[in-house]
């Protein structure tokens, strides 16, 4: 816990490329079950999580990781929401690499974040929002670092072990943001064909970079479209099928987080969740895990806990905001 030094495996671009070279880059069908897809995640993996905060979080995939009782994981995500709290409370994660963690302004500083980090149970490695974005982008580009003008002069430099580099042209010293090559990328997208070609509406967040940076790419999708549909709008594809390892069809796969244009985040659920923590402390998250993660055998059973009416309301709200 709390080691301020970068793990060389995170930025070793040569090893990361060899892993990709060794993989089949296939245009085969990728559709499978949540259980099978998530079976590819190993204890100790570094996981790059798509979406941002409570937007397009791959919750169905993440829930399944918890159900499969993985341990010693690192979660890397630009803004971390209550999915990070679930991983902390479940004992699944030993390190969170992020720029910010809590749920949102109305619910204040996360008490779960405070509990697990202040006790030293989980290390919170903090990078600036852009720096973490550039870490994924460097990984996506297959280079060991990207130059940047951010994060310098701050105490964040020491937390992550950021180095500088001298520009060989002007002689100026700039930040050298190290690549991050996750073992696994988890994405939730709006639509994909059965070959894994993925399309996203609205905010792209960092998903395309995370997918390219990772060795193994697991995707859940709201909708399965035909190959014809992909080929009709190829300029909408953001992740090509050949780099996807497993694809799962999971409508409402981010709920109660949002999916742009399809359903809004359920603020009321966040409020209930936070109220329980206010009442019972971290133990409330244990109860939540039992009720929402370990209890319901399938994602459909999980969604039943929210109920169709609530989901329909959030869908209506999303349409109002984006039409």
């Amino acid at each position, binding site marked *: 816990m709390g080691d301020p030094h970068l793990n060389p495996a995170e930025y070793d671009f040569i090893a990361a490329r060899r892993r990709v070279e060794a993989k089949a880059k296939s245009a085969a069908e990728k559709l499978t079950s949540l259980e099978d897809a998530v079976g590819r995640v190993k204890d100790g993996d570094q996981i790059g999580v798509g979406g*941002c905060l409570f937007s397009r979080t791959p919750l169905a995939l993440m829930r399944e990781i918890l159900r499969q009782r993985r341990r010693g994981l690192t979660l890397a995500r630009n803004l971390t929401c209550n999915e990070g709290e679930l991983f902390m409370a479940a004992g699944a994660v030993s390190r969170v690499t992020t720029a910010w963690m809590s749920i949102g302004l109305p619910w204040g500083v996360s008490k779960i*974040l405070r509990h697990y980090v202040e006790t030293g149970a989980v290390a919170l490695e903090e990078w600036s929002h852009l720096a973490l974005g550039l870490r994924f982008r460097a990984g996506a580009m297959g280079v060991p670092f990207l130059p940047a003008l951010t994060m310098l002069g701050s105490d964040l430099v020491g937390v992550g072990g950021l180095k500088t580099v001298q520009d060989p042209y002007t002689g100026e010293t700039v*930040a050298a943001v190290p690549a991050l090559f996750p073992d696994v990328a988890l994405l939730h997208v709006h639509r994909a064909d059965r070959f894994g070609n993925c399309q996203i509406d609205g905010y792209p967040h960092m998903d395309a970079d995370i997918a390219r940076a990772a060795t193994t790419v697991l995707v859940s999708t709201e909708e399965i479209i035909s190959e014809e549909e992909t080929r009709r709008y190829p300029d909408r594809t953001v992740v090509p099928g050949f780099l996807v390892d497993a694809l799962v069809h999971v409508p409402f796969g981010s709920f109660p987080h949002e999916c742009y244009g399809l359903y809004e985040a359920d603020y009321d659920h966040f409020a209930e969740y936070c109220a329980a923590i206010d009442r019972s402390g971290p133990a409330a998250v244990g109860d939540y895990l039992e009720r929402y993660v370990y209890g319901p055998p399938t994602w459909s059973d999980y969604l039943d806990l929210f109920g169709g009416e609530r989901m329909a309301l959030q869908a209506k709200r999303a349409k109002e905001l984006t039409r």
Partner: protein
Amino acid sequence: MTERFNASELLAVIAARQLRDDTTVFAGVGVPLLAAALAKRRHAPRLTMVIEGGIIGPEIAPGRLPVSTNEMRAGHRATMLPGITDAFLFAQRGFVDVGFMGGAQIDQYGNINTSVLGADYWHPKVRLPGTGGANDIASLCREVIIVTAHEKRRFVERVDFVTSPSWVRGDGSRRAAGLLFGGVSRVVTTLGILGFDPDSKRMRIEATHPGVSTDTVRQNTGFALLEAPRIETTEPPSDEELEMLRALDPERRFLG
């Protein structure tokens, strides 16, 4: 402070006045977003808001204000959704004129802490949510304006942790650290407007709100403040400003 408006309203109105037309502003959720929206409606129609969730040119939906910079509400009627990394890269390239920021702790050089209270980062006394986009806004915008309540526990001699650097330790130390551009120009508070001495880069009083004395400002600040050659008194929020502002947040989600 009079009873015509509360602290959040005062901050939003004074912050809005800092924005000029034909510019771009990086605004977070809450009071900064309301300030930017107010400026655009009132005096800067060709202002473009940029939100760190990867949003350009959104409009505010009154009654549906976002609580995060990365959700549908923040991008309502946006003109572009470039993604988070690219939104910040616009700032790195020099396309963002002003960045609004807040912070749990602010020191005399304008540096901000939103990470940890206590001396040991890895075992903090209080773990705060972290930088989010604040460090990048502080590093990359052409100019940064801090908007915050003025409290002694917030304005500290030395922040526990520099999450977002402004003038670092003064005397060219920002440039020496590799931050080639920008820096905090003003701190808009509930008591007045602070700036920085051009040479030492230490914080100074530049204006006070009506009825606030410089002594009151000092009493609410945890370090010695310099004074500008001439200290102005701000114009209080006008009825028009307050009316337009309140229309943006009818539920008073952020105006309190």
